[in-house]
């Protein structure tokens, strides 16, 4: 994006950002939110979405690539959407970040299978399905851990992978973003 040259520091550096937001659970909210981010020329690399502990409120976690000034703009634009209640950027240093991956890997013989099981144990994963020539395991962790595990599995032959995209919570006792106490308006 264009910017006034006089005060630009290193804000133009493109990096990965985690944004978490609380939205009302209504039709079309996801389209509104992703549309806004697309308009700002951001690339969304990961999305995870699910209900919160309170009825009618959903938490979305996005990982986007961009410079911090453009990100600030995108967050301000997101906040303007009526269905978006709260938006926060979560810093990796002060948050716990997890992703789940299901990985189907070839295990043609006993030797291969045993080796894979060892790796799964080291990565504290689980085997959740097994067939004569393949198995499915689940691995949880930050994205880098899953990347590392996948790299090891490549030598056996990965058949397919399903990753959830990360979800994250800020450390400590506060809630971020916090669900506001304003009553929910009942319409669909």
């Amino acid at each position, binding site marked *: 994006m264009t910017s006034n*040259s006089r005060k630009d520091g290193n804000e133009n550096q493109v990096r990965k950002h985690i944004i978490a937001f609380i939205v*009302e659970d209504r039709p079309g909210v996801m389209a509104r939110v992703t*549309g806004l981010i697309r*308009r700002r020329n951001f690339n969304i690399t990961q999305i995870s979405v699910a209900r919160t502990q309170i009825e009618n409120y959903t938490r979305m976690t996005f990982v986007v690539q961009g410079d911090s000034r453009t990100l600030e703009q995108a967050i301000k634009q997101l906040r*303007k959407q*009526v269905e978006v209640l709260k938006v926060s950027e979560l810093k990796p240093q002060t948050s716990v970040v997890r992703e789940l991956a299901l990985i189907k890997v070839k295990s043609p013989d006993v030797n291969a299978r045993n080796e894979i099981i060892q790796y799964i144990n080291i990565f504290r994963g689980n085997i959740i399905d097994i067939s004569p020539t393949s198995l499915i395991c689940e691995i949880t962790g930050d994205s880098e851990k899953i990347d590392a595990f996948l790299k090891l599995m490549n030598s056996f032959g990965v058949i397919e992978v399903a990753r959830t995209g990360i979800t994250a919570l800020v450390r400590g006792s506060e809630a971020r973003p916090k669900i506001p106490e304003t009553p929910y*308006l009942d319409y669909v």
Partner: protein
Amino acid sequence: MTETTGCDKKVPFMKGAKVIAESLKREKVKNIFGITGGAIMILYDALQEYEKAGELNNILCRHEQVAAHAAEGYARASGEVGVCMATSGPGATNLVTGIADAWMDSSSVVALTGQVATSLIGGDAFQEADIIGITMPIVKSSFQIRRVKDIPLIIKMAFQLARTGRPGPVLVDLPKDIQVGEDEVYFYEGELEIAGYNPNIKGHPLQIKRAAKALLEAERPLIIAGGGVTASNASPELIELVEMLGIPVVTTLMGKGTIPEDHPYCLGMVGMHGKMCANLNINKADVILAVGMRFDDRVTADLTTFLTESKIIHIDIDSAEISKNVLVDYPIVGDAKTVLRQLIEGLKTLITSSSSNSDKKTAWQKRIKEMREACDCLEEYEPVTPIKPQYIMKELQKVLDDDSIVVTGVGRNQMWAAHHLRIRKPRRFISSGGLGTMGFGFPASLGAKVAKPDSWVVDVDGDGSFLMTHQDLATSFVENIPVTVIILDDRSLGMVRQWQSLFFEKRFVETDLGTVPDFVKITEAYGLEGIRIENPSEIGPALREAKKADHTVVIDIAVDKNENVFPMVPAGGSTDQPIPCEPWPRRYKK
């Protein structure tokens, strides 16, 4: 209507269409601009009862784009919400340009669209269009009503969102079965508390204090007033602040009229075709107070040379506008009227008898005054043939009164009007700023006239622009909405022609519109009065006659197509280096 006991607002089993009509009435809607069709006729059927009672009036347009622009004109002239209505599919998509225009210029518009029945949505039914999806990036919010009992709440929300905070268009999609169906409904009173919507009205006291101090200590202060000053009715506060500190003001296109343009501190419009005195001083200021404006590229030109030396105070109700294009030093998020009042009060406590004008500030004011007078060149334009557009502005200025409303098309016509006409009150200059929509002028003038029937409404238009929506001369005739249309007729797409002339070595590609049509005959075909003028002496009398007329008059004036709009800051150039207008070097020799 019968009311149940126990719950005084609950009405048993009302038909959806009637619930919508009743909701509109409760929002104090008086006029709707729209066209009927298969998916909205049920609502129109229910509106008839209200029309007969004189409570709601539908202005039947001839094209939905006109309905949307008319709603904008209505909203901007009145400060109330403009309402447009269309059927599903093509009716709804024809509204899109108007909705986009309202979005860019923050006009409070509610667009109601018919939709196929909920059971058919998504199945490519006849006249189905996903208007919610299509308009998503150009609305403040949008709703598709899926239950009859939700109608009062959603319509109330739509109007509240369109009207408050930073105004903007809101779309409500009305499936056919919702209009037909019946249910128990509850009508809400007062303002809704909407969890995800809390516009900040009051400015942060600490920021106000810092801004006040900066303004007071400034040696060369300058205010940029934008459309937000109009939207929040903050003109009195703006003028009070200007006079309190003696600060010169430039306005954006959208801010025209927020301070009387003959006020000694008003420098007129800034930007691409702004006044020399405005553009040449903006970068000289040491403190800029920007109110309700968004540093659009037509104002800033090249950002790397824009306001590089000044401290910037930016007041805007939309926090997303702060530091969007230009990084600012004192951001204040809040309503222009409220924040300007806070600033004035803050300044009162700071000003002491010793804080009189510094010599440097006096010199700044003197410079501004001299340059402002040098810009006052309209009287130089003589009645020559072919007619100079500036001469038309000179004649029009004489006929305008303070309450006349000038609406414009888009192109050179718009810039001549914006550059030369001195507007003295807010909401008296209505133009398509952000989107630059050709065809905006005439429909918006109809909307403005409906809002302000006692004002003379003049559409300064171009031949290209007017042709895009002129079919609604029919609406003007049938609904009896008299306006004056002045066509600056250069038989070309003049603004593009100007760019070709300046930057494309005079290769006039696709900008010549030929010799047709005959605008007099067109106008007469709609039962209205058309006049063709080629002799400049006829302009003044024709305008005075048109002002008195009780019907629409189209005055088609042949103008010199080789006359370009100057000054001009070329796109990407610096505001410091406009191509000057012809009189400037003669009139300002410093």
